[in-house]
């Protein structure tokens, strides 16, 4: 079993060499890692690696191939690129859905103000929408001169993480 796992901008080739109960031998980018990886709860794994003990938590992310990993000290986002994902990517689907023409918020919140309407021409640096979450307001601006194609939300709407708010040309 071999898959690629992407973390930040680096892709690691992972191969399962041997699995004996919780003792796992994996080749990661050519280097063999041997560890006792015990699944404690649906998301928590207890690692014993060269007798060092630490937990790693695996939460499922936006898709069933995306994961959010918490190690003792850090948080990582990983993506599994298996045969299916590679096939999707080759056909231009997969996780290529990100749309730089959509202005969105990286946190859930509420739309406080929309400063543009369909058809408006805006200048680089203009604020187009203000989102509030937890008593903090964030202004979202365009980086270049743009034309507003669609306003997808209304003032007062609750929005999710990465939901498209404004579509620009």
């Amino acid at each position, binding site marked *: 079993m071999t898959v690629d796992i992407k973390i930040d901008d680096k892709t690691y080739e992972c191969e399962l060499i041997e699995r004996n109960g919780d003792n796992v031998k994996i080749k990661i980018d050519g280097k063999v890692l041997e560890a006792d990886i015990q699944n404690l709860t649906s998301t928590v*794994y207890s690692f014993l690696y060269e007798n060092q003990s630490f937990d790693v938590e695996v939460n499922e992310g936006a898709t069933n191939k995306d994961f959010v990993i918490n190690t003792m000290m850090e948080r990582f986002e990983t993506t599994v690129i298996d045969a299916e994902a590679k096939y999707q990517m080759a056909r231009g689907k997969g996780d290529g859905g990100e749309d730089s023409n959509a202005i969105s918020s990286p946190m859930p919140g509420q739309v406080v103000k929309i400063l543009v309407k369909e058809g408006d021409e805006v200048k680089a640096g203009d604020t187009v929408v203000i989102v509030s979450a937890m008593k903090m307001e964030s202004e979202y601006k365009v980086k270049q001169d743009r034309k507003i194609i669609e306003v997808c939300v209304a003032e007062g709407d609750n929005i999710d993480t990465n939901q498209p708010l404004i579509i620009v040309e």
Partner: protein
Amino acid sequence: MIKKILIANRGEIAIRVMHTCREMGIKSVAVFSDVDRTSQHVRLADEAYHIGAAPSAESYLVIDKIIDVAKKSGADAIHPGYGFLSENAEFSDRCKSEGIIFIGPTSKVISVMGDKISARRKMIAAGVQVVPGTKDNITSDEEALRIVKEVGLPVMIKASAGGGGKGMRLVRTEEEIIPGVRAAKSEALAGFGDDTVYVEKFVENPHHIEIQVLGDSHGNVIHLFERECSVQRRHQKVMEESPSPLMTPELRAKMGEQAVMAAKAVDYVGAGTIEFLVDDDLNYYFLEMNTRLQVEHPVTEQVTRVDLVRQQIQVAAGMELEYKQEDLSQLGHSIEARIYAEAPCENFMPSPGLVMNIDVPLGPGIRHDGYIYSGYTIPIHYDPMISKLIVTGKNREQAIERMKRALYNYKISGVKTNIRFLGRILEAPDFVEGRYTTQFIDNNIDFLKRKEEHTINHKVFAVAATFVHYLNNLDKGNSKEETQECTKSEWKSFGRRKNAMRL
């Protein structure tokens, strides 16, 4: 005595108050907005009432609705917590006129201490040391020069109508005085339509140190020593401790005395806090009074062993203070860390949402005042503070080590938190050596945000965990048939037993 208290708040402070209510045999009544039905404070209360939509202006801030629930539930008293209606004079008055005990000061005290200029006048009259300066408008260049010389450089020129840093000018040299006043005036006029500006002594490298006071309706006022609150980001406190590492016994006695004078000047009843600015030379100046329980009250509770909420309730019920000044002492050292749902590395952006898992640190010297639970969705409408971790140790060094251990054992997933950022504060030399001012976070921001170097490569383990989890998921997908097998074989064994029994 009070039998039932409505807690006009949410989150950790509502729960904090409920704990003491239960210990005193007092029933607690929660109120909640649309998005707070699942909130822990609703679960832990004896009774709970819905009061409106998510925005606090439509629920937690609506006096009529709160009063209505108090009457419906038969509550004798209302505890406002902090924030929301806690320093609202109208609310205090309304409670009084409705015959409900407001666990806080009178509207008069709230009004006097809530306004900066009237509070300053009151304090000067009471002999409390305030930041030197004048509240009178500067009307000419000559006046400007004269007043600044009286106050002594450096000074801050401030717009009377100002706020949020607008209409403010720091003046360090004589040459800067006149241009500074003019700039502040024109900015104030543009910003607020009012060019009134005044002069205040600029306190260099200020430490934010506050004194907890308690007063009863029999004229007794005591102080419970200081809290050091200089670890701040945008005037938001992040980590507090008691005692303050800056403090000397003499300064503590003097500031305590001043705080008692301040509270007595307004016949203060209840728990309150006198905030001071203290400079490196240990000059101290009254800043303002908070006429409510503070977020950071636990560090005082830990070192004085006084339950402040219990005292609030008792004096609100008309009882005398349980403690005299000479009963009180500071023992050990306590630190509070505020856990925020935010992403320090993304400019402290709030991070509301679903809490997947929470593992709180346990063991000796740990107190945890929080409100989230695994499976809870933190709403977008309120404060990002999700819990307070409070440690107490024999001395400051052991308290710091204990806090490090506790933060290391504290795991929250789903939402992003500032836990690692808090851990870095404890490693910053300025903090460890106890010589920090309100500039601490700004001065150390790179250190605080820097990622640790690890002896082991966490990335590789993140990859390995992803891989194993992915493999496990595949196995689960394949094992559905097996599960059916199991069921079958269970039936088989049942049949076999039946047969056995027929023998």
